[in-house]
């Protein structure tokens, strides 16, 4: 088994196939999209492959250390940044091909006009933190 992170971007991915912002969809199209996302997570739990699924708010800020006893320095909200992550899902699957298949299914979430959104999803292997491999 291997864990993969599926990242959904508001911005920063390859050029979207369909680029109608959600607020311009019909309300029932928005509902259908949300229902698809919830059902997808449920389906993965039922198949024993879901680790976590979370959406992220658009607003975000960069933070850094600024020396002992000093308050953290912030920069943002980063409205200008190119890359903006909308949410993530972590899956635990048998193979890379299975991860691709699931990401592709997720990308078929319905969009405007009920057509598959064909949204680009980024897929990243999660590193193991255990298991014996190297050293000897």
């Amino acid at each position, binding site marked *: 088994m291997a*864990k993969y992170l599926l990242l959904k971007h508001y911005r920063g991915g390859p050029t979207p196939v369909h680029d109608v912002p959600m607020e311009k969809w019909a309300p029932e199209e928005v509902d259908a999209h949300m229902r698809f996302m919830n059902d997808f997570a449920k389906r993965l739990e039922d198949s024993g492959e879901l680790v976590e699924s979370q959406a992220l708010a658009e607003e975000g800020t960069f933070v850094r250390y600024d020396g002992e006893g000093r308050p953290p320095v912030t920069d943002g909200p980063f409205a200008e940044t190119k890359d903006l992550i909308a949410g993530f899902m972590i899956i635990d699957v048998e193979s890379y091909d299975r991860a691709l298949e699931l990401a592709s299914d997720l990308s078929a979430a319905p969009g405007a006009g009920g057509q598959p959104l064909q949204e680009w999803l980024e897929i990243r292997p999660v590193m*193991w*933190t255990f298991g014996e*491999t*190297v*050293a000897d």
Partner: protein
Amino acid sequence: MDEPLLRELTPAVIGILVRRGADFATAEDAVQEALVDAVRTWSDDPPRDPKGWLVTVAWRRFLDLTRSETSRARREIAVDAEPGPGPVDGRDDTLRLYFLCAHPSLTPASAVALTLRAVGGLTTRQIAEAYLVPEPTMAQRISRAKRTVSGVRFDEPGDLATVLRVLYLVFNEGYTGDVDVAAEAIRLTRQLATMTDEPEVAGLLALMLLHHARRDARRRADGSLVALAAQDRSRWDTTLIAEGVEVLQTALAQDRLGDFQAQAAIAALHADARSTEETDWPQIVSWYDELVGLNGSPVVRLNRAVAVAEADGPQAGFAALAGLDPALPRYPAVTAYLHEKAGDLPAAAAGYAEAARAATNTAERDHLTRQAARLNQSLRS
């Protein structure tokens, strides 16, 4: 409360329920519930016959579970019948349970989870923790696995090779939190070895014991890896090594060599040496040759190249890499090591850095990054 005893009794009790006519999936749930009862009540009032107690309580649980699903009429028939006689031989039932839980129709991850629950007696929560997934996800994985094998006859002949692969996965891949899964894999393999003379079972047990013996020396307190050459060999567990060697010798005496026996033989030669310099590398290379003959996997040939370099020098190691795909995992790490042995430090440093970027395991990545940093520092000074 004797939890090891409970876990040991688990497969035999499931076997008895199945022989009395219970379906495997419900029997397994019933026994898990009986285990919970036992944990709760035994410390105050331990039974004289723990196994009999578990069978009685699990059977009662089974009846409750089945009656609550009245629509499943076929089960009712089994329930209304008087309990049949107990098993002729509990060991056979336990062996059959190993086969069922490693049935070829299951994916490896499902087989691992089902084996840990039904043969190992672990709870779903403990298994979920070992594989770092949420408990509901693991519960689904287990119940799907049970559905997958629901049509398999309990006494269907099984394949030991698939059971060994599952136990090997348990040994290698679990995260040790509440339960030490590597120790659990050893316990299950040890139990299996009492039920069969198949030399590969003993080979796998020996391999696990010899690896486990080095576990404390292989990691620092912070979890970082210590390469074999740098390990404090006084911290190797000599009792486990002695047992591993003995188990291996008995297996090898049967003269039916297999992968696990050959791997255990290599581990035994490492365990036997006081340092990397004193290691019998030519002998290790000849075991790798056996392994290549049994299973010519690229990973085996990659590891063989390292042993060849130790025996005959880095150039021989490079020559042994011929024909292997550089895209193999660990290929850059092996070439970096060979470059270092050959004295080409810039190539070695670059190779370790490349290998670190390609690593899929954080401990391995950190280890390779340190190797690159160490060489780059010595190149600067």
